[in-house]
């Protein structure tokens, strides 16, 4: 079946290491995306025409550009055209953050504008000041709405990191290909075993996260 190649040498460890690279890139990108997305999303609710025009163009670019094109533009564009030496990892973190910030800001905007005006007013009517209102009433509700959605973004990012091997990063899929290449003669079926294992690894990485998000969503529905 081709699973035996994984027992050879440290092949399994290498696959896990490749998954680690994918997780590392996506987690850093998610952290940046959440941070910048919250700022941009909050700015978007101000209804400032300049910010709105900017964010509309930005979201549209992210929506229509394949991530792979963005990866090539940043990685090759920056090094060849601008002469800045960006590592493949940094390039992919930039691209994923660029993408994630767009998605996140849209989620934050939705969560913020989804909170009824009466929530602010009844908090104020109880004598709470603006800071207390945000801290105890508004932000906890926003976080409850955002966490499941941002977890969903994390799993999609982990999946999409398989693209980064296109710019030379040795992540899990790339390791898999290397193992298959190296054992082409001795185990012609290696492809099946390796890809099945990668499937399982992705599943093991994403399924608990996705379960957690479903659980939180259920717990916090109101």
């Amino acid at each position, binding site marked *: 079946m081709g699973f035996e190649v994984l027992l050879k040498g440290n092949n399994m460890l290498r696959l896990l290491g490749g998954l680690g690279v994918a997780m590392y890139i996506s987690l850093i990108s998610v952290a940046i995306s959440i941070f910048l997305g919250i700022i941009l999303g909050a700015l978007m609710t101000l209804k400032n025409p300049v910010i709105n025009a900017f964010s509309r163009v930005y979201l549209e670019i992210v929506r229509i550009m394949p991530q792979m094109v963005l990866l090539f533009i940043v990685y090759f564009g920056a090094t060849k055209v601008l002469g800045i030496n960006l590592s493949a990892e940094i390039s992919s973190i930039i691209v994923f953050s660029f993408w994630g910030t767009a998605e996140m800001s849209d989620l934050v905007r939705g969560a913020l504008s989804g909170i*009824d005006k*009466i*929530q602010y*007013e*009844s*908090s*104020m*009517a*109880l*004598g*709470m*000041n*603006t800071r*207390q209102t945000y801290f*105890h*009433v508004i932000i*906890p*509700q926003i976080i*409850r709405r955002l966490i499941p959605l941002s977890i969903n973004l994390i799993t999609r990012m982990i999946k999409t990191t398989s693209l980064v091997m296109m710019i030379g990063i040795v992540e899990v899929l790339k390791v898999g290909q290397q193992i298959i290449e190296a054992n082409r003669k001795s185990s012609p079926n290696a492809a099946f075993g390796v890809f099945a294992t990668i499937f399982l690894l992705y599943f093991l990485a994403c399924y608990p996260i996705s379960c957690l998000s479903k659980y939180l969503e259920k717990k*916090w*529905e*109101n």
Partner: protein
Amino acid sequence: MEEILRVNNLSKRFEDIEVLNNLSLSVKKGEVVVIVGPSGCGKSTFLRCLNGLEEIEEGEIFLDGEKVSSNKKNMSKTREKIGMVFQSYDLFPHKTILQNITLAPIKVKKRKKAEVEEEALKLLDRVGLLSKKDNYPRQLSGGQKQRVAIVRALIMHPEVLLLDEITAALDPEMVREVLDVVLSLAKEGRTMLIVTHEMAFAKAVADRVIFLENGKIVEEGSPKEFFEDPKTDRLKKFLETFSYEK
């Protein structure tokens, strides 16, 4: 009896529409004033001006002899003294019933948690909802939520309570349980300004009834005069819309 709330020549406009037109009113301590009037006549706007949810543009409001200003810092102080319950359910969905009630006294008045909880449980018991203390608002009916909202306002020990059509969004069978709570508050001598469309309730609870139309007080009087012997044609007409005769 001493005056607790005084409104002098209050006017308020939204863009071109004059919503409140030179309105004046004095409320004594312990008095229950019911405000009725056609929809859109400015009842909510009036209550919202009293606790600073709408900016006061013209006129003055005095609470307990002190001038209420739109200044942000003073406003929170004023709001501690004026409680308000709204028409739409406004409990905090992420907090339990007990937490909904204790949040403001703990954070705003800096009272001790244990003491506040004890008082909250007493009040919940009084409105028949002690068993719901650990539930979330989504698990309560509309009538139960409004009773909690009343308790949440009461625990701040407001000097004046504003109720804005608190039964208007309720199913008919739940109206009674909420109004009974309000009646018991009136009996214990609370100062209240109540906006309602329940005329029988207005008659039972009010010391004074005010008819508001186009942002002006058209007529006011004791419930007996007001409902049985209305002076103005406009009030007569308004009251007719609530009676059914063949």
